[in-house]
Each structure stands twice: as structure tokens, then as C-alpha cells.
């Protein structure tokens, strides 16, 4: 038909051709789904009663959260003295946990924004939960500097607002303040991006759920979405713009976090490679956490057809490459410490490897550099048990990386008379456990009440794989 060919040509000019799937390549979504099947499958966990497994996990998460609430209550009652910090090691467990949680968030943005810009279609099955992970992880991260303030009820003082203290403004020349803006923007933009992406799926739920309350809630959340062409067109534009904004944002966030250390004069912190090194580490740990969560979720929520071996394989490859970058960063640090001929720098790295916290350095290298190398083998990437173990060990290693950098560097500075040790107290460990409780409580609620998979995006992938593309029928 003449009009169809005109359409095809016009369409081809505006969109770069979507790469066609090679016949031998396995499909992204298994089980030959129709688009109606996608709706039914993704909505199923929301519509049925939660399973016993979900309840068990939820109660465990709540218990961990209760430990955190008790620890924080004790902290508020007594003051910062209940932590193991001292005059030499002024930052330790709390800031380690802050950097750890912020880093975990980064994979969510990478999957939802950078992979969207690169048109990686495998991201559609996991982007929704990865973005949720980002938001919850940043919430956990924000908690730690807040608690460290000592008087957290004065947290408003970190914002530049006209005040009765003479209008005493914040110090814009301090990286700690840059952190406030970086983390605040990151949380806001991630939340907005997530919500905008959820709108069409809220509408699907609104038109589907039976209960009156559920219908009203999903109806309000859908903002009256109807899915007209104009709406979809603008929605796609907004998502692309937000992805374009989130990409430099995510790189800036961990760069700014690394400035907290890099702009100081402490040997072991004062390095120029910190921004890229921290960003790579963040993506590395984030992908570790995404893999952990996805492998649990596909089993617990029965989403094996949507989160397939191909997704796991792709994530493993990202994990492996990020692990290599992190390994390179460790080697570069050591090389520069030796090559700079700076005695303080040399001492700091000797102390890091062979000092009182040398065991932590060992765990870090083992978990972040050595163990991920098994992922070179395709057979290892297909073994879900092995991948699950590696994904957890990566996060153990990345936590120790931050601990080694922060507490390890502070422990022994220029003046031997001020050297000190550090050991966490129960209150600190309890707060850390509580942050995991908060994270998993929120994530399990998300699995229960929101569509874990971006239905509209997966439908487009399914329709494309079924050969129902534009002009395919003509």
C-alpha cells in the first residue's frame, strides 16, 4: 500500500532502526507472552494474597527495622558518645554506611537512564525494581549523615534559607554542603522519574483491580492517565529528557561524595582518582545489589519468564567489567603511592595493607577483584546459585572498601601521638542492621503493592519480538 510505505519512510527517518533480534538469540521474555498475558502476570502478585514466604521476609525486615529504631532511640537519648568514634577516627561506621547505600542506588539510575539512552532493551524487565532500589537506598543513605549531626532536629540548617541567626548562610565552598545538594537532587529526580514511569501502569491497575479502595488509590496515583497518542509521545519525551538529566547526575553524585574525602589533606583520601574510582565502585556494588534482589524476586514473586538467564547474563557482564575497573583503581592507588615518593602517602598505603586493618583490605581485594573473575566463564553466569553468592560477596567487599578508605586512613595520620584504633559499638551495628530493615521493608511493600515490572515497556518489547511491529502486518 502506498500510504504504508510513506509512513515507513517517515518513521525510519525519525527513529534509528531498532536492532532486529538474531534468530539464534534467545528471546528476552520467555513463554511467548501476549500483551494481555503481561498485564495478568505482572499484576498477579498484587491481586493475590501475599504468600507465606513474603510474610516471613516482611516480618524479618520489620524485626531488623525495630533493631534500628531502638539503636537510633538510644542514640538520641544519650548522644553521639554511644558510637565508637574518637577524636582521631571521627568518621567510621556511619559514613561508611552512607557511602555504601548511596553507591547501591547508582545501579538503579544506570539501568533506568543510561541503558535507556543506549536503547538496551533488556533493561525493561528490571528497571522498575532497580529504580525502587535506588530510592530506598538513598533514603537509607540520607539517614546516616542526619544521625551523625548529633542534633538531627536542626537538619534544616544545612539548607540556605533566610533565618533569624542574622541570616547566617551555609558555606558553599564546602564539599559537605555540595553533598546536600547532590543527594537531595538525586533523590528528588529519581523519585520523579520513577513516578512518571509508573503512571501508565497505575492506570492499568486502576482499570483492573476489584476493590473500591484499591481502585480509588490507583486512580488517584494514575492522575487520570488514558494513554492517548499525544500523552504517550510527551511521556516518551519526558522520560528521555529525565534519562538525559539523570545520566550526568548519577556521575556527579558519587563524584561529590568522593570530594568529601578527596579535598581533604588526609593521606589515603587526598587523591585525584577518587571521583571515577568511586563512581565505578558505586555501579559495581549497585549491580551486585540488583542481582541479589532480582534473583530473590524472580523466585519469590514467580517472575522467571520476565527476569531470564539473558538478563542475569547481561548484569553479570556489567558486574565483571566494573570489578575490573575497581581493581585497576586499587592498583593505580598503590602505584601512585609508590611513584609519588611521598612518605606519608607510602605510609598510608602500607598501613592500609599491613596495618591493624589489613584483614579488611584483604577481604576487599578478595571480594571485589578476585571472586568476580569467575564470571568470565559462561557456565558460571548460568549458575544462579553461584551468581547469587558472588553478588552478595561483592557488596560485602564494597562495604569493606569504604570502611578501609574511611576508618583505615583516619586511624593513623601524620602525628603518631594522635594514632587511635576504632571498633564499632552495638548501637552502630544496630543502626546498620536497621538500615537493612528499612530497605527491605520498603522493597517488600513495593513488591506487594506496585507493579514490579514496567508493563508498558515490556509490552512494547513483547510486541516487537512477536513481529507485530510497524508495517509488519502489511
Amino acid at each position, binding site marked *: 500500500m502506498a500510504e504504508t510505505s510513506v509512513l515507513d519512510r517517515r518513521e525510519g527517518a525519525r527513529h534509528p532502526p531498532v536492532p532486529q533480534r538474531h534468530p539464534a538469540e534467545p528471546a528476552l521474555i520467555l513463554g511467548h507472552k501476549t500483551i494481555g498475558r503481561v498485564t495478568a502476570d505482572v499484576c498477579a502478585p498484587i491481586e493475590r494474597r501475599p504468600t507465606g514466604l513474603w510474610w516471613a521476609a516482611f516480618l524479618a525486615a520489620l524485626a531488623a527495622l525495630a533493631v534500628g529504631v531502638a539503636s537510633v532511640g538510644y542514640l538520641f537519648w544519650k548522644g553521639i558518645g554511644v558510637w565508637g568514634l574518637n577524636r582521631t577516627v571521627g568518621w567510621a561506621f556511619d559514613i561508611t554506611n552512607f557511602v555504601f547505600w548511596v553507591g547501591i542506588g547508582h545501579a538503579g539510575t544506570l539501568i533506568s537512564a543510561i541503558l535507556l539512552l543506549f536503547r538496551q532493551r533488556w533493561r525493561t524487565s528490571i528497571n522498575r525494581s532497580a529504580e525502587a532500589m535506588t530510592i530506598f537506598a538513598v533514603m537509607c543513605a540520607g539517614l546516616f549523615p542526619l544521625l551523625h549531626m548529633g542534633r538531627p532536629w536542626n537538619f534544616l540548617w544545612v539548607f540556605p534559607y533566610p533565618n533569624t541567626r542574622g541570616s547566617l548562610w551555609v558555606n558553599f565552598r564546602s564539599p559537605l554542603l555540595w553533598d546536600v545538594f547532590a543527594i537531595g537532587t538525586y533523590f528528588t529526580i529519581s523519585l520523579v522519574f520513577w513516578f512518571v514511569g509508573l503512571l501508565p501502569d497505575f492506570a492499568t491497575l486502576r482499570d483492573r483491580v476489584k476493590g473500591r479502595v484499591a481502585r480509588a488509590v490507583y486512580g488517584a496515583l494514575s492522575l487520570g492517565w488514558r*494513554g492517548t497518542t*499525544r500523552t504517550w509521545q510527551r511521556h516518551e519525551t519526558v522520560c528521555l529528557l*529525565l534519562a538525559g538529566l539523570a545520566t550526568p547526575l548519577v556521575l*556527579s553524585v558519587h563524584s561529590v561524595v568522593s570530594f568529601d574525602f578527596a579535598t581533604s589533606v588526609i593521606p589515603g583520601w587526598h587523591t585525584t582518582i577518587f571521583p571515577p574510582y568511586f563512581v565505578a565502585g558505586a555501579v559495581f556494588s549497585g549491580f551486585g545489589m540488583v542481582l541479589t534482589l532480582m534473583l530473590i524476586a524472580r523466585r519469590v514473586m514467580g517472575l522467571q519468564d520476565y527476569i531470564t538467564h539473558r538478563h542475569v547474563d547481561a548484569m553479570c557482564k556489567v558486574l565483571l567489567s566494573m570489578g575490573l575497573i575497581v581493581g585497576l583503581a586499587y592498583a593505580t592507588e598503590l602505584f601512585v603511592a609508590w611513584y609519588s615518593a611521598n612518605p606519608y602517602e607510602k605510609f598510608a598505603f602500607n598501613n592500609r595493607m599491613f596495618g591493624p586493618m589489613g584483614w579488611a583490605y584483604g577481604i576487599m581485594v578478595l571480594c571485589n577483584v578476585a571472586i568476580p573473575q569467575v564470571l568470565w566463564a559462561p557456565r558460571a553466569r548460568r549458575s544462579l546459585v553461584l551468581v547469587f553468592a558472588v553478588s552478595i560477596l561483592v557488596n560485602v567487599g564494597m562495604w569493606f572498601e569504604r570502611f578501609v578508605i574511611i576508618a583505615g586512613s583516619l586511624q593513623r595520620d601524620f602525628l603518631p601521638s594522635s594514632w587511635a584504633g576504632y571498633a564499632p559499638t552495638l548501637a552502630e551495628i544496630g543502626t546498620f542492621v536497621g538500615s537493612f530493615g528499612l530497605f527491605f521493608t520498603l522493597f517488600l511493600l513495593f513488591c506487594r503493592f506496585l507493579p514490579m515490572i514496567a508493563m508498558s515497556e515490556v509490552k512494547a518489547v513483547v*510486541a516487537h519480538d512477536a513481529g507485530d511491529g510497524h508495517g509488519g502486518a502489511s
Partner: protein
Amino acid sequence: MSRRLLVLAFEREGDLLRAVGHARAVGHEIVEVYAPYPVHGLPEAQGLAPSRLPWVCLAGGLLGLAGGLALQAWTSAVDWPLNVGGKPFLSWPAFVPVAFELVILFAGLLTVAAFLHRERLWPGKRLAVPLPRTTDDRFALVLAPAGASYVPEVVERTYRERFDAVEAVETLEETRP
């Protein structure tokens, strides 16, 4: 006066795209098209211009940049300059990170606000979709075929036979308050 509308349902995006092409060729006015996911090529098939939201994004970014730099310069150097470690009051390089974050924040929030405003999306708004399954697995094409020669049955049959329309409903246009 409200118009008579013909709502046609399709099961595949290919059928929908060809039906849209046909409607435009024969001059059936397309009132609206509803889809459960973004169909590539549909805005072009309907002849919609690209969205102008990128301009809002640019404006938001520039606003964030100007506002961020102005705020930092004014508070640090004009309103109450404080000597912190002998650093200059107007430390432009130190102002870059916060200005950058504010560019992103303003650009993102204003783009989304403009999107919601233009689409008139807000909590509590409720307009029915023409067919219940258009947010699930159906595509709906709403036509306003006007003119003396318009015989609903004939038009309906054309779309059913040539483009596999699975459902056809005649309604009256909703008069919006």
C-alpha cells in the same frame, strides 16, 4: 451539539497503524487513539508534531544555573561574607557542583510539571477510557466520520474486514465540563 463517534478496537499495533493511515487517507477525522504502550510511528502516522517539552527542559536548566550561581555569589560574597580558611568569597570553581545540581533539579522538575500541566494530569482526575481494555491489551481508534455519505455500518465493516478491528462501538462525544 455532540458528534457521533465510532470507537474501533484493535488487537495488534500493525492493524492500528494501517487503520490510522486509511482514516487519514479517506478523510475520517481521528479524534483520539488509545494504546496500552507507546507505539512507535503512531504520532507520525497521525501527523502529530514532536513535543516541545525539550525547550521547557532547557529553560529550566538555564533558570537553575542562573539561580544557583546568583544564590551562591550573593550569600557568600554580598550578604554576609565569611572568611573560611582564607578562601576567596567569590570562589567560582567551588560554586560549580551546587550550580550543576540545581541545573538538573530545575530542568527535571519543570519538565515534569509542564508535562503534567499540558496533559492535564492531576490526582483525582477521572476520565473514562473509551474501552476498558485500552490500558491492558487493546488499541482504540476513535473516529468522527462526518458528512452526508457516512453510513456507520459500511465504515465499520471496512475497518473490520480490512484492518481486523475486533470491536466497534458508536457513542456520542463526551462534552467536557
